[in-house]
């Protein structure tokens, strides 16, 4: 009798192994799937030999690699977002239509040209249209950057709400894993899914992950703000900042308590906060300072002068709320280029001309054109650095991903070989049963 049961246990074990192989082949392309292995051990009954059993189905996964992958996903998420936001910014800054340096040079060239005949209507019209073009460049650039601020702000709100959903899902999944583990069930698929979700969360910001063998999970932020403890899960929220319509502070709400988040939370969310605060905001501030100087200084020079009708000067520019405009009422003959009322006097023009080479303390003791060059240079260098960081972090991530895949991923040749081995072994066991049957018949026929 034991020959039957030994062979049957062998056939069953191989059938299980074949099922595991089938599962692996089926999931060869499933993202985050960890291959499984049936572990067998021989069993012995009261009278010795009793066959084989599948003692466990092991999920081939290395917690160290998984946590490294999460951590490198944080770094990758941050540098990826930073690089793409800077690349968008450098496209804006580099656009010909937004080249403030060209606009300023053009405007001052028109002013300089007018000194040859300050009374000339042609030159005066040119000053008006160059001034108009300059304001368009300013506002175009400022609007494009503000639009990016707005977009980052939308990204942040979207990310915060996605993250809250993700945290809920991780909590639900954790609860299920603990329940099934408690009743001795198979949690391999659930654990793969949970690891994927944690990795997705890690892309958003730095997460400390604490897992134990019972399936319990604790998550916290880099500075210790709790995200998930047992069944309690945190939600993220944003708090608007005074005077900064597009920026916001982040908070974690856990069990009715609020924990403010600092600036360096890492990941995509950290990159958004950084880009808003350290890239876009300073540029907008510089642009505002430049626009204010142009409007104040040019209008100031004109206010001291006299126009073609002998009246004192009307302002050429108006600056309000980050927007530089041309005084819509001003006519060419109202440009006050004369310092003493004489029509042929162009002293005011020379005063305005001198602004192009004046260092302004508001801009850090550089000229208007240099201020734009400085912005361009900073963005260019930052973007170059971000691209280099992205390349090296992508390399690092790919390397860790490769280590994880090479351990946990499916190799179809290996599965094909297993398929043959287990199928052969299954047949062999069946042969044993049939042999046992023949022996039994031989014995029966002896009577």
């Amino acid at each position, binding site marked *: 009798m034991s020959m039957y049961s030994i062979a049957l246990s062998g056939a069953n074990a191989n059938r299980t192994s074949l099922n595991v192989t089938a599962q692996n082949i089926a999931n*060869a*392309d499933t993202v985050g799937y960890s*291959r499984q292995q049936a572990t067998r051990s021989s069993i012995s009954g009261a009278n010795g030999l009793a066959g084989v059993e599948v003692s466990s189905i092991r999920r081939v996964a290395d917690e160290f690699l998984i946590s490294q992958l999460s951590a490198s996903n944080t770094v990758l998420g941050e540098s990826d977002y930073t690089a793409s936001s*800077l*690349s968008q910014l*450098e*496209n804006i*800054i*580099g656009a010909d239509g937004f*080249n403030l*340096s*060209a606009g300023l*040079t*053009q405007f*001052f*060239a028109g002013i*300089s*040209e007018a*000194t*040859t*005949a*300050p*009374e*000339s209507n042609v030159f005066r019209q040119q000053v008006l249209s160059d001034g108009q073009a300059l304001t368009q460049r300013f506002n175009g650039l400022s609007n494009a950057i503000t639009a990016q601020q707005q977009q980052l702000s939308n990204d942040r709100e979207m990310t915060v709400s996605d993250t809250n959903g993700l945290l809920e899902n991780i909590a639900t999944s954790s609860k299920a894993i603990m329940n099934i583990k408690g009743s001795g069930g198979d949690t391999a698929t659930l654990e793969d899914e949970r690891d994927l979700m944690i990795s997705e969360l890690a892309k958003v910001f730095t997460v400390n992950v604490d897992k134990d063998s019972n399936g319990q999970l604790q998550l916290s932020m880099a500075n210790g703000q709790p995200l998930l403890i047992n069944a309690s899960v945190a939600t993220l929220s944003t708090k608007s900042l005074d005077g900064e319509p597009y920026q916001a502070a982040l908070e974690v709400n856990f069990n009715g308590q609020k924990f403010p988040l600092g600036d360096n939370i890492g990941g995509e969310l950290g990159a958004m906060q950084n880009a808003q605060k350290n890239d876009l905001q300073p540029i907008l501030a510089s642009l505002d300072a430049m626009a204010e100087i142009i409007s104040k200084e040019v209008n100031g020079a004109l206010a001291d002068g006299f126009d073609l009708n002998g009246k004192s000067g009307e302002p050429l520019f108006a600056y309000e709320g980050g927007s530089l405009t041309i005084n819509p009422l001003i006519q060419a003959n109202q440009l006050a280029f*004369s310092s*003493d009322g*004489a*029509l*042929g*006097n*162009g002293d005011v023009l*020379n005063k305005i*001309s001198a602004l192009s080479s004046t260092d302004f303390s508001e801009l850090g003791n550089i000229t208007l*054109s240099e201020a*734009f*060059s400085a912005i*361009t*240079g900073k*963005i*260019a*260098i930052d*973007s*170059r650095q971000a*691209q280099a960081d992205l390349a090296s972090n992508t390399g690092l991530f*790919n390397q860790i991903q*490769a280590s994880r*895949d*090479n*351990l*946990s*991923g*499916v*190799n*179809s*040749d*290996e599965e*094909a*070989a297993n*398929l*043959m081995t287990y199928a052969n072994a299954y047949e062999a066991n069946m042969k044993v049963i049939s042999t046992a049957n023949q022996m039994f018949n031989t014995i029966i026929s002896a009577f």
Partner: protein
Amino acid sequence: MRVSDSHLNNIMLTGMSKSNTELSTLLQQMYSGEKITKVSDDPVASVKLLGLEKTQVELDQYINNSEAIKSEFQRYEGHTETIENGLQSANELLLWGLNGTLSDADRSGIVIELEALKETMQATFNAKNGEGSYIFSGTAIDQPPVDSSGTINPAINSETRETAIGDGISMTNNISLEKLDAQAIFDMLDDSIAALKSSPFELTALQGAHDSLLTSLNNVSSTQAYIGSQINHIDRIVDTHSDTELFAQKLEGDLKNLNYDEASLKFDSFVTALEATQKTYAQISSLSLFNQL
């Protein structure tokens, strides 16, 4: 080492997407003819280019201003020549008048010519430019400098107008009546006419007027010399600016322009690498133990 299917796929995808990115950058460089596709490609060159563009626009403007002043001075040159010619004619007339043997009729003939000359002078000093502005009024360009009686309009001035023709170089672009001492010329003509008309003829007064004429002639000649020197000065400045601009353009080209030979070589090697990767991948992925089952 154990290698999973997904690892192989990832290597292939990463490699191909990298090659594609590089190819697209190269294509962008080739169709624009510029090696800098975005400022971060070369931050230092990008900032330098902004400066070079600014320099070129400024140089263009300095050249434009110089040409405008030059044509203005050429206009002054023409008018000064008219005045010089007038003074030369007056000189001949006065020398003739100083000849004591002339009859009263001869002298009144000279007076007529001198009065005609005075009108020419007055018209010349009241010359206007293309803008309709009086060119000898200083900055009071709407005021005619001289009235019909040869009196200088008190509303005009001798103020100058400066225009930048280089970095830190500015040039006066107008010439006032004072420089030509118009008042002295008109006084001289009036004195001469009065002396010639007076009976008996006042030789000493005409002598005095002739002395004054010589001073005026001298004055006008030196103004002409001044105008000539300004025009030469402008020509030299324009030459320098043109050279500098050429140099700036060359620098700009060096920083910006793509070397097509280099780019097409690079393109060939990218394509070869991409094709090789794709073929290898296709072969590797067709190798499977499942094919033997």
